[in-house]
Structure formats: structure tokens, C-alpha cells
């Protein structure tokens, strides 16, 4: 009940914001006055109506995971986000080994297998991608300057990174 109501409220606010943004779409001589706005407004309208339906007729709640699992998933998201920004400045092998190891530990919390999985996947996949499949833009390792590392990490902080 509550989950669907919250979800409905979030989508309703998003839909209204989207509709507001749609009315502000810039147009010019080539596009005509209303064509670029028409489709977004239709979508926003349907989304708003569906959200209202959800608010008033919610389904039963799903089985949400326990707090511990939420924290684990939060950690996984942070790890993946940091991995995403470090892949370029720090190269493939080290970030991949760490990220894969942490994920592995989170699925099955044993230290040694997790380390083995991280290192094995990192090196194995690097060989697969670089030498067998020949994907060009992955690099084994780069030693980033502290400034570059900081630049990469600030990308994750809203309003600080570019």
C-alpha cells in the first residue's frame, strides 16, 4: 500500500515537472509552435493520470529487503559509481579487481574467494577484451596524478564536479 503510494507520488511530481518543462521547450520557425511540445505533453498527461490511479488504488506492498540488504545495495551503488569514474584515469585492472571483489563479497561474504574472484575476473576479462576481442579503448593501468584522481571523484558530487 504505502510503497505504491510513495511511488505514485514520486511519479506524479516527476510527471508534473516534466509537463512544466515540456511547456518551456524552445521552438523555432522550422518546427512550428506546438509540434515539439505535443508528444511530451501527451506522455506527461498519461503519466500523471496513471500516478493518480496508483495513489488511489495501490497494490499490496512487496517484500522489501531487511535494512542490512539495503546498506549492502547502497554500498554496491557507491562502489559501481566510483568504478565508473575511475575506469578512465586509473585503467582497467586495479579498479576492476577491487569492484568485482567487493561485489563478490557482497553476494557471498567470504574473504578469500572474493579476492580470488576479483583478481581472476579482472585479469581474465582484460585478456579476453584486449587480446582476444581487441577492444581498443581499455588500458591495463594508468598512474593518475592526485589532481586527476580528485577531478574524477568530484564528478560524483553534485554541483562540485563538472
Amino acid at each position, binding site marked *: 500500500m504505502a*510503497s*505504491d503510494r510513495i*511511488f505514485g507520488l514520486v511519479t506524479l511530481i516527476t510527471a508534473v515537472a*516534466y509537463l512544466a*518543462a515540456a511547456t518551456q*521547450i*524552445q*521552438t*523555432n520557425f*522550422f*518546427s*512550428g509552435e506546438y*509540434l*515539439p511540445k*505535443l*508528444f*511530451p505533453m501527451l*506522455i*506527461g498527461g*498519461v*503519466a500523471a493520470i*496513471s500516478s493518480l*490511479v*496508483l495513489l488511489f488504488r495501490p*497494490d499490496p506492498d*512487496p517484500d522489501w*529487503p531487511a535494512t542490512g540488504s539495503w546498506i549492502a*545495495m547502497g554500498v*554496491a*551503488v557507491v562502489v559501481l*559509481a566510483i*568504478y*565508473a*569514474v575511475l*575506469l*578512465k584515469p586509473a585503467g*582497467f585492472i586495479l579498479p*576492476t579487481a577491487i*569492484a*568485482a571483489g567487493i*561485489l*563478490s*563479497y557482497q*553476494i*557471498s*561474504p567470504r574473504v578469500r*574467494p*572474493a579476492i580470488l*574472484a576479483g583478481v*581472476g*575476473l*579482472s585479469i581474465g*576479462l582484460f585478456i579476453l*577484451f584486449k587480446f582476444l*576481442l*581487441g*577492444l*581498443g*579503448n*581499455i588500458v591495463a593501468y594508468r598512474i593518475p596524478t592526485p589532481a586527476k584522481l580528485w577531478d574524477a571523484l568530484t564528478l560524483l558530487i553534485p554541483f562540485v564536479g563538472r
Partner: protein
Amino acid sequence: MDILSNLALGFSVALSPYTLMLAIAGCFLGTIIGALPGLGPSNGVAILIPITFTLGLDATSALVLMTSVYYGAMYGGRISSILLNIPGDEPALMTTLDGYPMAKQGRAGDALVLSGVASFVGALLATIGLMLLAPSLARIAFLFGPAEYFALYLLAFCTLGGMASNNQAKSALAACIGLGIATIGVDSSSGLPRLTGGNLHLYDGIDFLVAIVGLFAIAEVFFFIESHGKGSSIGVKLDKVRIPWADIWSTKWTMLRSSGVGFIAGILPGAGASLGSFLAYMTEKSIAGPKGGFGTGVPKGIAAPEAGNNAAAGGALVPMLTLGVPGSGTTAVLLALLMTLNITPGPTLFTDRPEVVWGLIASLLIANVVLLLMNVPMVKIFVKVLMVPAWILLPGVTMVSFVGIYSLSGSYFDLLLMVGFGMLGYILRKLDVPTVPVILGILLGGNMEDALRRAMTLSDGDPSYLFSSPIAIGLWVAAVAGFIAPMFLRKVLKKPQAITDFGAFGCIGSWL
């Protein structure tokens, strides 16, 4: 004998040693992907698209490779259904109903071979059906103007939404999320950015591959973290594999009927393979009656859903190739593949690029034979794959996804976006909001909007133009009916639940 000459053209494209090798490699890889619990045709094909694209294969080779993977994954799904009682993908759910009991009786090998043969029959008949039906449907599709196309896209969303979720509002929301994402970026007619929030990274729009890989593959990781990878151990023993001729012969009519049912279910836009296997199983169950013993491990109970499932997979290619409207999650992913290769499905594809269409059909036939030959003697190898533990598999899938997207664009922004889509996919699936309409929305949003704009331009802004032809009216009626009918049919056609020994995590995990 148009078809034969076209088919000859197809085989001339698809039967070179190189493409044959790709087909075999694709089938092998696909079967493994399908067999792995948590990886099905949709997310398996999705994570491979960016990599295939970066490999720089030409269109035909890439198509042969990926359709082989697709068919292979459809075959492989049954292995974990039968041995683990975990469906590798949603359509394989029905196979668990009789496959797992049969395996527990010590006939795991028989069940695997029988389901392999049933898959072959279903897929073969569906491919033949595709050859016969698709060209004529493509001719009809030439009559479609912008109004008809708009109604057709709407129909796809309505029927898919009606089937995929238990709550129409949720599937409508899912479609709106996808369509809304598709509108982000530089507008095609004015050349001005819209709905980007001023973010330069969004001027190009959001790549559908990023969304697909995030929603299908990364979301899976969160499900495994939640469940701690429980439930992937083989509970039944697989002895020597023999070919159960008697069972195959006794189920021949079942296979034929189920192929027919599955193919028709597959053609309906939005219905797809899950409905195909479900209807095939239910039809056979009612024909056999209570004495048939369905649910206790009878051969017919395995042959029916597998033939239906694979026939529906072939049938779903008919609307995808002729109209550009995919019928299921997996065909949506295949559509994404075609669009990545710069091939636009639709009626013109059959006249402009016959070598692609018929090459594809020929490679489907080849993949089918390869899979049958591969699956009977080599089934033990694929069973070994099931032993790969989740704590290696899921990090591996994540890293492959990252490398795929990274090699496509080289941008950290797309990677972050992919993680975001992963979180979105987890939340949506938890809330029973289907993710396939989101994908379909991102894929088709641009075309749907173009159709609407053209219709409005032609009619000078008169909305009644959208209902101006009999075809368009028919599609609108079908769309409304397809959206509303499941509300009333839901009590009759209840979604089957897997019989469980150890929780339902497997079917949540692959509930695409």
C-alpha cells in the same frame, strides 16, 4: 517460388565458413547464457550488443552471431528449469512444472533431450511460418501511413502493458518513463535541445543500450545481493544421456499443436514467448484432461511449453521485422541490435535489403540445427555451467556490462547512467512495474513521435486524422481492447507460480 529463391539468397549469405563459425560460437555462448540462472535471452543479448558493435563485425555477421545467441539462450533456459527448478528466463517457467518432477524421478537426461527436440520442432516450424507470413505482412505494411503507425505503436504498448503486469496503471507508467526518456535530447525538427536540464551530456539523448544493460543486467546484481546468491545448487543427478525415442514419438502431436499455438501467440504484438509457452501448456493440459497427469513429470508437459516457447520466439520476429514493433522483451533487445547496426526494420527492409532479412532467416534455420546437434551430445557440458557460483558470475556480468558500454562511448556519464538504470530496474521490478515497456518506450519513442508529427503536419493539426482510415480505427480498437481485456481476463488466466522447494527468488530474478 519466390520464397525458395529468397531462401537461396539467404543461405548464400549465411552459409560461408566464417558466418557458420559465428553461428556455432553464438549457439554455444547462447546456451551457456540461457542456462546460467539469472541470465536470460534479454539480458544475455543486451550485454553482448555493445561488445559485438565494438568488434566491428559487418551487419550480417553481427546479426547471425546475435540471433544464434538469442536462439541458444532460448534453448539453454530449459536446462536450469529442469535441473534446478529455476527458470533461466520467464518463458522457461512453464517447463519447470513438469521438467523438474521428471528430473526428480531420475529421468533428467530424458527430460533434457525431449525438451531439446521440442524446442527444435517449435523453432523450426516458427521459422517456416515466419518465411511464409512475413513477406505478405510486409506488403500490407506498405499501406500504413503515419496515423496507422502511431496507432500500431500504441497497440504494442497497450498489449504489452496489458500482458506484462498485473496493474494497468503501472505498465502505462512504465511506457511513459521510456517514452519520456526518448524525448530527451536535440529535437529533430527544430534542432534545439529539449528536456535536457541544460546538461551537455544529455544533448545526444540517452542511448538505449545504456538503459537496456542497466535495467536488465545491473538490476540483476542487486537482486543477487539481496538474496545472497542462494538457491543455485543442483538437486538432481544426471546419469547417462540417451535419446528417449518413445517419448519423442508419443509427443509428436503435442509438439505440432503447441508450435501452432505458440507461433500465433508470438505474432501478437506485445504478447511474446511467455504467453506462447503458457497457452501451449494450458491447451495440452486441457486436451489431456485430468488423466494426463500434467504437473507430475509427463513428457507432454515438457514438450508443450518448450515447443510453444520457441515457436513464439520465432513468431515474435514477424511483427518485429515487418512493422518494426517487437513482440517481447527479447525481440525488443534484438530490435535494439538492428538499430545499432543501422538497419531499420519495417516493410522496406524486405525490398531494400533482402540479403539481411533472408540471411537472418537462413541463420535462424542453421542455428536451430546446430543447437539440436549441440544439445543432445553436449548437454553435460552445459550442465557443468550451472555450477558456476553466483559470486563469480554476477561480478563478471557487471564488469562485462561496464566494459561494453565504456567501449561504446568512452564516457563516464553513460556508466553512471547505467548504474542509475540498474537501481531504477531494481525498484521497478520490486514494485511489480514491468521493465520491458520502459525499454520499448526508449526504442520506439522517436519513431512514435515522428509518426504523430507527420500525421499532424499532413492534417494541419486535426486530431481526427489519427482515426481516418479503417486500418487505423481497427488498431485503435485493438489497442484499447488489449489494454482493458486483461483486467477482466486476469481471474481466468492467472499467472502461474513456480512450484518451489526453495523460494521464488529465481523467477523474480528473471521476471522480464
